[in-house]
């Protein structure tokens, strides 16, 4: 059966009239408040929140990008006096923190909250209110950081804020406190999203979507979510310790009183290394989605791909010391971490090989999303290989903390994550907005970004080997670093231009883009079987699935789920392994309390910067919000339990 025959899932099943009736009921039940202000604060729809995540994260991306460009301007020539040391310190710290905590992780998880329920065939995430709460806390963290930056209290101790520099003795003022609390906000948010995604993926899949049929994109988010659950507590705890060292004079990191500066590094990198894979693994899922759509094949080696994702997730927890080779740890220990760091190249390699095998002789359509994926191959492989170089202790001792490392991580972060992300945004834009982007502008943006990127970051390898440390606000002419730095700055301009074209393309398409239709690319996952943009309830009738590529393997008489009530927000819960129908859950509708709770959390952590009593002050609104959140509103039509008279 060809793709053209796949129509709206659920469409026409029971005859036009019955369908229209069902549609009306679902629309009423799953309605987003029509007053925009109310909708903004009470919405719990995963698609609206997902889009909000993506847009917010892109705003932070632009801010972080502007900071990067300012740094590049300052570094373009030796002894430039454009930006002083204090400003520069804030710029690279806020750039790094923004890109990691406010852009990369939230956009990946946010896109996940948009796509996962669609791909697995359900109506919302398992915990819709928690999802709204996650967004508010994330937004609070982002605003806090930028209020700090614009009031000249931007953190300035680097994105990993090593003590003692970030401690009370050497960073007086509130700058680092703002950083530590921003971390707390974004981690709470990511942890909540992770739990939400895990539960949704485990329990809310369409009947028939057994574990071995989950789309690779969904697998990638599952692995990512597990990594979040086990990695982020480390940074929550360490940022708490740092804040307490600064605010209430604890001594966790103070060697004079039995603390240890290296403890910070261990805790931070125990989180920090998995963090980079948290950014990277969802991108691998995007690559798989795009590849299968454009090659019109299932990705080669499903099992190997899944095992590689899982292996990367596991090994990712055993590498953190490779960020600390220069601290002079014992050689035996460091060899272990070298071995582990190199081992992780094997699952990455397997995935590259499987994708190559997928592409092999597929005569793919070279549309913009696929171009970004091809760009990903080129850049990520370079970045991965420089990673393997860094994993070698002797080599790392030379290039650690130099621009070589800056080059490595932009190759993997931008090549490995941002390229697939841009491709993915291009790919799913029609689904999210109902409009198609212009291919011409898409290709133009790709080439500008690709060339600009390499021009910016390739020379940095050489700069690092030539002795240029990172995080320096200027350098002397005698060092000979001027030419390559100028080249990098020019490249950053081209890169920025390419991104500008990307955004202009999106803005134009929003206004007068061609209508997308359900399935503009002929792709294989469930989201393509429904309208673009999807209705608030997603599927008229929940689908069932007969194979890995839900749409390509769809039979003419593929069963659909009936019997769910449409007068309350009912969803089907299935069992973990085989996704057999298990029970019907009722999801909550729009509510203000997640927002109030987010506000309470914000009050707690922000006042805590100024007084320890903040924790108690903030506890009040939090408690009120939690009680209200929990208290039954009787709108779910649940059964009431009566006191038994005995």
């Amino acid at each position: 059966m060809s793709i053209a025959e796949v129509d709206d899932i659920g469409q026409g099943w029971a005859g036009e009239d019955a369908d229209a009736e069902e549609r009306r009921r679902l629309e009423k039940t799953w309605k987003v408040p029509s007053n925009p202000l109310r909708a903004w604060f009470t919405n719990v729809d995963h698609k609206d929140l997902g889009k909000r995540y993506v847009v917010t994260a892109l705003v932070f991306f632009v801010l972080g990008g502007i900071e990067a460009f300012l740094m590049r301007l300052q570094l373009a020539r030796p002894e430039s006096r454009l930006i002083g040391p204090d400003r520069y310190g804030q710029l690279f710290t806020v750039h790094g923190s923004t890109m990691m905590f406010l852009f990369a992780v939230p956009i990946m998880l946010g896109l996940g909250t948009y796509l996962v329920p669609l791909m697995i065939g359900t109506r919302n995430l398992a915990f819709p209110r928690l999802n709204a709460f996650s967004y508010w806390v994330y937004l609070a963290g982002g605003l806090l950081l930028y209020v700090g930056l614009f009031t000249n209290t931007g953190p300035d101790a680097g994105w990993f804020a090593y003590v003692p520099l970030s401690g009370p003795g050497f960073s007086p003022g509130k700058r680092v406190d703002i950083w530590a609390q921003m971390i707390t906000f974004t981690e709470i948010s990511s942890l909540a999203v992770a739990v939400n995604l895990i539960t949704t993926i485990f329990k809310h899949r369409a009947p028939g979507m057994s574990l071995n049929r989950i789309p690779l994109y969904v697998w990638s988010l599952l692995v990512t979510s597990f990594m979040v659950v086990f990695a982020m507590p480390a940074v929550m705890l360490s940022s708490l310790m740092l804040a307490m060292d600064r605010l209430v004079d604890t001594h966790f990191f103070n060697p004079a009183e039995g603390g240890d500066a290296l403890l910070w590094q261990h805790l931070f990198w125990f989180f920090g290394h998995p963090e980079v894979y948290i950014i990277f693994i969802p991108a691998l899922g995007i690559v798989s989605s795009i590849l299968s759509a454009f090659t019109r094949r299932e990705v080669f080696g499903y099992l190997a791909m899944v095992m590689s994702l899982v292996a990367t997730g596991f090994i990712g927890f055993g590498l953190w010391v490779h960020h600390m080779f220069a601290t002079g740890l014992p050689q035996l220990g460091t060899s272990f971490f070298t071995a582990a760091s190199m081992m992780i190249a094997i699952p990455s390699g397997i995935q590259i090989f499987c994708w190559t095998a997928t592409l092999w002789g597929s005569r793919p359509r070279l549309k913009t999303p696929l171009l970004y994926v091809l760009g990903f191959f080129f850049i990520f492989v370079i970045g991965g290989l420089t990673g393997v170089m860094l994993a070698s202790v002797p080599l790392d001792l030379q290039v650690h903390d130099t621009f070589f490392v800056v080059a490595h991580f932009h190759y993997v972060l931008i090549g490995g994550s941002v390229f697939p992300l841009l491709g993915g945004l291009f790919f799913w834009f029609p689904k999210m907005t109902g409009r198609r982007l212009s291919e011409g502008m898409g290709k133009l943006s790709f080439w500008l970004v690709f060339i600009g990127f390499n021009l910016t970051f390739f020379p940095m390898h050489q700069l690092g080997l030539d002795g240029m440390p990172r995080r320096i606000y200027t350098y002397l002419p005698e060092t000979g670093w001027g030419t390559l730095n100028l080249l990098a700055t020019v490249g950053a301009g081209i890169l920025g231009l390419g991104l500008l074209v990307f955004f202009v393309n999106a803005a134009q398409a929003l206004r007068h883009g061609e209508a997308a239709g359900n399935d503009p690319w002929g792709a294989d996952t469930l989201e393509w079987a429904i309208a673009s943009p999807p209705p608030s309830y997603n599927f008229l009738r929940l689908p069932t699935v007969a194979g890995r590529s839900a749409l390509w393997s769809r039979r003419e008489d593929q069963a659909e789920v009936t019997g769910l009530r449409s007068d309350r927000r009912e969803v089907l819960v299935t069992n973990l392994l085989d996704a057999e129908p298990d029970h019907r859950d009722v999801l909550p509708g729009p509510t203000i309390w997640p927002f109030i709770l987010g506000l309470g959390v914000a009050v707690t952590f922000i006042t805590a910067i100024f007084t320890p009593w903040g924790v108690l002050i903030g506890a009040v609104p939090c408690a009120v919000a939690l009680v209200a959140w929990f208290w039954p509103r009787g709108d779910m039509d649940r059964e009431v339990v009566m006191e038994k008279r005995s």
Partner: protein
Amino acid sequence: MSRRADLDVSGLPSVVYGPRASLWWGVVGIMAIEGTMFAILAASYFYLRGGAVEWPPTDVRHPGLGITTFGLAILLASILPMHWAAKAAEREDLKGIRLWLIVSTVLMVAFLVVRGLVMRSLTFRWDSHAYGSLVWTAAGLHTVHVVTGTCENLLFLALLDRGPVEDKHMLDLRLNSLYWYFVALSWVVFYCIFFLDPGLLKMR
């Protein structure tokens, strides 16, 4: 349009318990997160202990094996009524739930009192040294959990009083108990680490 088969789910229940329920996964997720946090705190303790010249520092005195063990015993004892409350929820026995929630809440408050006494008797503060920071932070974080657990119990009691009590609350109650087991048991680890530390036992 061809006629499709259907998969009628109207007969399925809408409240189930244990790993079948979505919320169970949510609560287990939170336990995994907080468990990881506690584990990392414990690891930090051993890391600092390993690098220390003297551990615990000389001004530290054991707050007393008796009172700390007594506190732990109360905490562990509170698991039982919580378990019975969960059992009662299984039977939808509101009276039983109320009874066992009250009993366990009393135990929780008693534990908090003992916790307060122990903390007051400590010879050091969080700002005395890294050892003090660790003990106070672990105890503080754990106390926050106990207080939260107590408040949750009070909330359920209020709900039982005011109603309407829905079938879904039976699941909530059972998960509330599950979470409490976690809170209570996690202190066993810190109790062993702190109060059975051979170095500290010598300092009585």
